[in-house]
């Protein structure tokens, strides 16, 4: 008797009655459906409201094409730059102890808490006609703000922390022992990074890059401040959506928006796969403790005992 009741009571103690569970799941799903699924569905429904032909017509528009090209160009510049920065920052922060480290991590996070509009504004203040470098730039006939370079700079700012933020905790959790082993065995720093560190952080890196890319392609506020809103020249896809929408070209606006929504869906899929892979690798690591050399001497890791 006691053996059959004790697991039941224990289980009852850590979960809720069936009706409570069902109600909670129900409320959560309705909330998610209303706030997340409905907007996503609305984008595609509105885009196809007048049929596929109108949809294709809207996407074939040369202004839409130039917006797509500019968005791709922006992401192609901003993401690799932030990737290099993210890896360098994560290496410095995760592998070494130094004075002011937590302050540096806070500064790296800073762009996340700055309003996108403020992010755009600061570049206008530096490069704009009345800004610090404005007169010099005008003299040399270089246009940064209200042109493509400004759009790229503002995008770099808003996507700045994504990759670093993803890699720092991951590399901290992995510790230094594998890299140290490689160096002691005679590998160069670059070989160590390429053959030891990179395979370990691969999925975290993909995760960071994909989120960084989604934000880079979708940024609106910051880009809207520094773009001159010149059709076919300084309009990214989100800005083009705004213009079409304000001109009451609803189908065209939603058609371009549907491309961005597709991008978001692809991002979510890749992100989930990367997450599952990371979890699996972490689990695999946890399952083989005897083969993983545990540091007998904590100072070897550069940590204070």
């Amino acid at each position, binding site marked *: 008797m006691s053996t059959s009741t004790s697991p039941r009571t224990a289980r009852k103690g850590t979960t809720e009655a069936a009706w409570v569970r069902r109600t909670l799941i129900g409320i959560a799903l309705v909330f998610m459906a209303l706030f*997340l699924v409905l907007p*996503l569905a609305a984008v595609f429904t509105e885009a196809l409201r007048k049929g596929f032909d109108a949809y294709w017509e809207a996407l074939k528009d040369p202004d839409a094409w130039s917006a797509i090209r500019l968005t791709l160009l922006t992401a192609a510049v901003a993401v690799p730059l932030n990737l290099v920065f993210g890896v360098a920052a994560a290496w410095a922060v995760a*592998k*070494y102890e130094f004075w002011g480290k937590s302050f540096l991590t806070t500064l790296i996070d*800073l762009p996340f808490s700055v309003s996108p509009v*403020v992010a755009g504004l600061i570049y206008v203040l530096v490069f704009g006609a009345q800004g610090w470098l404005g007169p010099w730039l005008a003299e040399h006939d270089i246009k940064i703000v209200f042109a493509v370079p400004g759009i790229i700079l503002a995008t770099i700012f808003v996507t700045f922390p994504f990759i670093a933020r993803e890699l720092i905790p991951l590399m901290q959790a992995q510790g230094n022992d594998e890299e140290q082993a490689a160096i002691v065995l005679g590998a*160069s720093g670059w070989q160590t990074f390429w053959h030891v560190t990179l395979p370990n952080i691969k999925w975290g890196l993909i995760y960071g890059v994909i989120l960084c890319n989604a934000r880079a392609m979708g940024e609106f506020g910051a880009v809207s401040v520094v773009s001159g809103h010149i059709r076919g020249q300084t309009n990214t896809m989100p800005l083009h959506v705004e213009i079409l929408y304000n001109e009451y070209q609803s189908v065209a606006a939603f058609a371009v928006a549907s491309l961005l929504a597709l991008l*978001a869906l692809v991002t979510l899929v890749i992100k989930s796969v990367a997450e599952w892979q990371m979890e699996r690798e972490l689990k695999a690591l946890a399952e083989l403790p005897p083969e993983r050399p545990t540091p007998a001497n904590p100072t070897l890791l550069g940590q204070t005992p």
Partner: protein
Amino acid sequence: MASAPSAVLAGGAAAAQHGSPTRRRSKRRVLPGFNITLGFTVFYLSLIVLIPLSALFFKTFSLTWPQFWDAVTAPRVLASYKLTFGASLIAATVNAVFGLLVAWVLVRYSFPGKKIVDALVDLPFALPTAVAGISLTAILAGNGWIGQYTEPLGIQLAFNPNGVVIALIFIGLPFVVRTVQPVLEDSEKELEEAATCLGATRWQTFSRVIFPSIAPALLTGFAMAFARAVGEYGSVIFIAGNMPMVSEITPLIIISKLEQYDYAGATAVALVMLLFSFVLLLLINGLQTWQRKRSGGNLQ
């Protein structure tokens, strides 16, 4: 090739000879690349973030104090603060409640399609804000999927502050779910079993045992959702209607000042927002430290 490892070994031996005071220092140098990676990090950070942000402070110094004060306390600007902070507070509160619920359901229960729901939580991170803005507007406007039913009841959801709140709920949701979820996953079931064995009801166990352990994470998520909502622009401007004094958010004030070439005024309002986000950032950092201490204490 044989010379390289032996050189490293010799270096190691030399380091070992140094004795204890310098030992930690020499161990740190085992991995190469400290100077170059830290140097590049600081350089890039200064170039992209710190120097441009400092421009905001220097530009504000060109204003006299009364000019600055007038710019940031004009009635229209004050009304925008009220809307921005009020709507963000409501949205972050709704997110805290429903975010906790979604995180709870995802961690504790199993149901069909759970993995898809879990992945979908991040949609607001991945969906461009402008797309979210026009899409929510299309749903909530008088002829939209939801608006057509609420408008006859006298509830207008788009083109007024209601719309602002709804857009901010959308963009803030993942923050709460993603900060509470890992803490719930790590929480120990033994504590709950102990509480039950000691005679606590399920609700008592939740409110006295589980909730205190996730409270720091919930508060962190709330603060993050709030910080994001205050600065949000893209999703809000489509749905807000943007009527001065009624549904005009602070970031929009900055934009309209810029469009009138009132750079100093725009900068002054932007500085207020920036200082506010600094305060929030410090608060969030403090909360995270608290949370780490809490969970660290539980583990040991």
